[in-house]
């Protein structure tokens, strides 16, 4: 128990109150004069079944609303679409090879240069060792 708690308890105990005999008699007389009201059933708290029932009722109400809205809405007017379009035929044929060539040509050039450098170096080494 900390200092403040102890102090508050001690100070509360230091408030000395006595119910006088006169007040006691007065209260007792008052209590005899009144009648307790008839017992009222204590309302139980909302149970799990209550929540389930309200959930189901909510879902049912939502479904009913959707059904009513759809029922009242005008029927969709059929639209003449003609012949179905072949999407494969519509999509333009892209020359993918051109694009890949554009993308890979700098690398190919780099590879050729490296191979040429390698060949030169190989020849030089052969010359050096007198092969």
């Amino acid at each position, binding site marked *: 128990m900390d200092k403040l708690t102890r102090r508050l308890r001690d100070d509360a105990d230091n*408030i000395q*109150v006595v119910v006088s005999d006169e*007040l*006691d008699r007065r*209260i007792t007389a008052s209590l005899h004069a009144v009648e307790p009201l008839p017992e009222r059933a*204590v309302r139980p708290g909302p149970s799990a079944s209550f929540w389930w029932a309200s959930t189901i009722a909510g879902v049912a109400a939502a479904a009913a609303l959707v059904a009513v809205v759809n029922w009242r809405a005008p029927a969709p007017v059929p639209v003449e679409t003609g012949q179905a379009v072949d999407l494969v035929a519509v999509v333009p044929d892209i020359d993918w090879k051109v694009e890949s060539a554009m993308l890979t040509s700098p690398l190919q050039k780099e590879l050729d240069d490296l191979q040429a450098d390698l060949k030169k170096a190989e020849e030089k080494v052969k010359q050096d060792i007198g092969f």
Partner: protein
Amino acid sequence: MHSYRERLLRFLLTRSMNFADAEDALQDTLISAFRYIGSYDPRWRFSTWLYRIAIRNAAKARTSDVVPFSEVCDEDSDPLLQCIADAETENLWVSARRLLNDEVFAAMWLRYAEDMSVNDIASALDRSASWTKVNLMRGRRVLDEEMNRAVSESEAYG
């Protein structure tokens, strides 16, 4: 209910301007409790229910008294001061009555004088548990400062 009379009177005395008002509030509280005993919910502690009625009665009696305690009560007429045994330091509940509002005072009283749990206090005050916790902490901080101030003052004056 007989055993609660003095405890309730002690609490009501801290909320009343004079002894007669506290006695009337006690009588009203006990009559209300007796009359509505049928509506008592045994899930609550009986003392919590009694204090709930007492707090309402005290608040009802105080609605006409808009003047704060510190301005009205002098040492001769203040019923609380008359019931406090002589002590070297000022009773902290007198400071609490001056520094805290009615609800926070009641929460502090129920916690530290009646040793009630936070949930019981929340039920008695018809407040949430979080409100009760926050205001108990605020009340503690205020009274802690007041206690330390009083101690340092008394040390300064010897």
